């Protein structure tokens, strides 16, 4: 690796390419976006096609509070990575923990909504087309939140043992890119499920 610089003469401009983490994560996000697109298209295509109830209007109400939590976690993770870049480790840990908490609250929101739908309203994935598309789209998003929380918690464990340093800011940025994506997808899911779909 050290030999790289030997071949460069001093007059030539420095050879800079984008970091592989950021590019790799962006490509992964593109693939994920394509997967979500198909599920969103299926949701939109099947709105109002169910042959039996319950309908979205009867059982769904927009989860404003939980949405607020998830969207603000994008802001807190941004503050966390900014703190890390400034080597303010204590502040990084606090913001990071807050991000995890907000994500967990959102997940609790989804879980309680599903619990109510299944036990009170009798809506499962096999009840009708609404159930099929609702559980698969929201479930796919919830799965991504879970994966994100596992990654965030792993970083948190490392941070508690003092293993996260300023030098890791680049990697933390890559992870926060994923978290921003999970939040952005929720905006689409919210619009489709709770605004258009009702």
């Amino acid at each position, binding site marked *: 690796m050290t030999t790289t610089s030997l*071949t460069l003469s001093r007059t030539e401009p420095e050879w800079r390419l984008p970091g592989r983490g950021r590019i*790799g994560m962006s490509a992964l996000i*593109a693939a994920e976006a394509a997967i979500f697109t198909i599920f969103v298209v299926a949701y939109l295509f099947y709105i109002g096609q169910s042959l039996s109830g319950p309908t979205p209007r009867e059982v769904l109400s927009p989860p404003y509070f939980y949405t607020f939590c998830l969207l603000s976690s994008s802001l807190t993770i941004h503050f966390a990575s900014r703190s890390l870049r400034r080597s303010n480790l204590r502040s990084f840990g606090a913001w990071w923990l807050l991000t995890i908490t907000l994500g967990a609250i959102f997940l609790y929101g989804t879980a309680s909504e599903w619990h109510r739908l299944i036990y009170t309203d009798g809506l499962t994935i096999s009840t009708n087309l609404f159930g099929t598309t609702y559980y698969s789209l929201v479930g796919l998003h919830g799965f991504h939140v879970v994966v994100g929380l596992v990654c965030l918690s792993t970083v948190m464990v490392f941070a508690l043992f003092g293993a996260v340093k300023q030098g890791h800011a680049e990697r933390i940025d890559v992870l926060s890119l994923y978290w921003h994506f999970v939040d952005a997808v929720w905006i689409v899911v919210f619009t489709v499920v709770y605004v258009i779909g009702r």
Partner: protein
Amino acid sequence: MSTESIAWPSTTAASPSFVDRLHEWIVTVDHKRLGILYIVYALIFLVIGGVEATVMRIQLIRPHNDFVSPEVFNRMFTMHGTTMIFFVAMPVLFGFANYLIPLMIGARDMAFPRLNAFGFWMTAFGGLLLYFSLVGANGLYGAGNAPDVGWFAYAPLTSQTFSVGHSTDFWTLALLVSGFGSISTAINIVATILCLRCPGMTLAKMPLFAWLNFVMAGLVILAVSPLTAAQIMLLLDRYLGAHFFDTQAGGSAVIWMHFFWIFGHPEVYVLVLPAFAFASEIIPVFSRKAIFGYPVMVGATVAIGFISMSVWAHHMFTVGMGANVNTFFVISTMAIAVPTGIKIFNWLATIWGGKIEFKTPMLFCIAFLFQFLIAGLTGVMMSAAPFDWQLGNSYFVVAHFHYVIVGGILFTLFAAFYYWFPKMSGKMYSEPLGKLHFWLFLIGFHLTFDFMHVPGLLGMPRRIYTYEPGRGWDTWNLIVTIGVFFQAAGILVFLGNLLWSYYRGKAAGSDPWDAWTLEWSTNSPPPAYNFAVIPTVKSRRPLWDLKHPDDPDWKYE
């Protein structure tokens, strides 16, 4: 990075035991070894898929033949299609991309070596899962064996009602698993090309091979993901009683077609872009000229990438989508012929006035040019919706897409095998055997797929296991089947050539073709670290600059 894997078996040290070598290959994260694993894996499945095709052709050699039962015939065409696309074509192209891209862009490995190994093993286990259905798919019902729903597995044939047992589950899971492998490899290719090019290699100085594989990887990311989504939906339908494709509950069978072909058509370009990549490297070297119209080639590639994502529903003209939708897909399908035609003209212009050397790789590339042109022309014919209504699902369609996949992709793939075999093995292949392979396969290919158009025009539908005599199909089917044996003989010569040359071939040296891209500047086979010193390039043909310091390319580019 890759510097951990220096434990390359060398002849000077005591030869490691078989178990040690096996262990090294299994745990390897070296892009060259993973590339070879991909290629060998695909060759094994090529033979399996080829045997399945042969079984079908023997069954159809004459009317009322009873070589196999209708059930077995259904399994054969399903397994043949699935195997050839997902477990031969994709892995072999990924194998070449894996092996060559880091060498061509002057890098020491892929961007994510461990992800690379993950991708290979996912693909490998996907293939094993598909074939495990032969023993594992009986399930509780005693029904089913290998999947028999066709390679595009239209709903509602895949529902629990019509596919009892687990054969369809094996099909779905195999594609899901290998899809994850493909997506991770594609991410790796994109990151490698964008982040690891050697100093001086701007995007405009990158070999066309890297450019075409870059667009291919982008297409994989955007096209295989919808397939993954559709497979998840199918699994939900089959296991949790969801209703995506369940028409009884208001679901739609047509939306599966859309989802499948949103993957399916870009997939064709995923396969053909690497074929173009081989041709774009091999034709200039054996014409002793630089590629004609490099910027236009790049532009045409990107254009193909974009247009290919808006043509999928030309697979569905016979469904009845309405005049406006049909018109859109007719026009977009015809439009994609334009950038493809530009490429063919550029290759011709590269050959024009060149000092052509008719070595085996060049022979395959020239055959590719002719055959791909004809494949494209029948494609333009069928892009017209009324023509497609007449010939949709006939043997004309089968002949058309085999002309693309065999006549276009497989021919350049053979060219690539012969061209890079000296680099990968360090040995030169046997030129007479290579030429014998070429002529056998050329004759077999044309016997099979030229004459296959005719029964299609005469109304023979695809996927029938037998037919009535006296419809004018008999002789054509006989000729088509005879061609298969020539192709099989060609493949045997090819495999024999690879094996013989690997053990007995002459040493090839690092640059047997007097070529111009960076992979020829390192040893054959390259050391684990690829380049002792990371090279610096100033033009698209760095080795030309090195060999001709008096007249380097960078003066003109």
